[in-house]
């Protein structure tokens, strides 16, 4: 191999190495971190949520709300608004969920009543097992 060719090859390899040494940590940095193992369902004593009260929960890594109403019993929803991810608040009096960000409103079934959210709130199954509730 000619001296010139060798030098070209050598500097190219060095350059690529330097680029890799810079790009690899950057790539690692940009890679989303794995979230911790998620709790898929939650068991709670029924007595913790009397009628007309709510409880905030974390189901599968999602901030959620459990509502106990006189008419419909126990209902559980993700609090994450389907528009742009703010957390909805429950209005006890009007029995609706209101999103404070762009005024999206959902009914007690999680369906969109008004505002920009494109789809209903994610609903979780609630099972009554004796004195306990299993949510999710």
């Amino acid at each position, binding site marked *: 191999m000619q001296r010139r060719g060798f030098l070209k090859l050598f500097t190219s390899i060095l350059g690529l190495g330097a680029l890799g040494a810079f790009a690899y940590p950057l790539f690692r*940095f940009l890679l989303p*971190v794995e979230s911790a193992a998620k709790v898929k369902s939650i068991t709670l004593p029924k007595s913790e949520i009397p009628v007309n009260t709510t409880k905030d929960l974390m189901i599968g890594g999602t901030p959620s709300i459990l509502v106990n109403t006189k008419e419909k019993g126990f209902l559980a929803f993700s609090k994450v608004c389907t528009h742009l*991810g703010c*957390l909805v608040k429950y209005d006890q009096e009007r029995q609706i969920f209101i999103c404070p960000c762009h005024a999206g409103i959902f009914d007690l079934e999680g369906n969109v009543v008004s505002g920009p959210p494109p789809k209903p709130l994610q609903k979780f199954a609630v099972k009554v097992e004796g004195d306990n509730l299993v949510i999710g």
Partner: protein
Amino acid sequence: MLLTTLGFCLSGYLLPWSQLSFWATTVVTTIPTAFPVIGDIICNILRGSENVSGATLNRFFALHVAFLPLLLVSLFALHVFLVRRVGISAPPSGSEEPNDWREFRHESHPDGLPFYPYFVSKEVLMTVVYLIIMFAIISFVPALFIPADANTPADPFNTPEHIRPEWYFLAPYEMLKLIPNRFLGIALQLVLVMVFILWPFIDTSKNYNILKRPLLLTLFFVTIVVWVGITIWGSF
């Protein structure tokens, strides 16, 4: 450069890790999810995790202090290069002959003022005045431009009531609220931005005087009026 400056505003906004900044970042990083397929990937890369978290803070900090300054300096260099290469626009009242305004010709105009030292010294003076005012505010009245809410620490389980962005983001915020389709609302804003970025390539009129370019003038004023109108609407 304007968009990069807005990028600075956005990435810097998260750094105090307050309620306002946390939820503004949640909304902004959810915006890409309106686009099918790549939306979720972009959202995850921006956040660095499923939700806005410490990983997001790391990324936004890196963006704010390393990537965006580099980008801005590069754009600034490109801007100066283009001013030298293509020339500058004539002021609206300027000459019909655009070339008159495009370059400093020392040979044909020996009485003209060169950039250095005349304009450089003026710019240095303005920079010093700006720094004096800025450091005075930072040292003596640091809370002057900071709303009270900005001191509430971030709570990922509670979105504050009546959350609203800063005034310069009120128009996009209100448009997202008004346009029922999330994809349309976001796509429309992107198209508007692209039209302005690509305008020099769309409208290739040789006339440098904006008053003699009716299409650009109309578009400019309509956009400003609509923008200001929506911003005011969004503030109520």
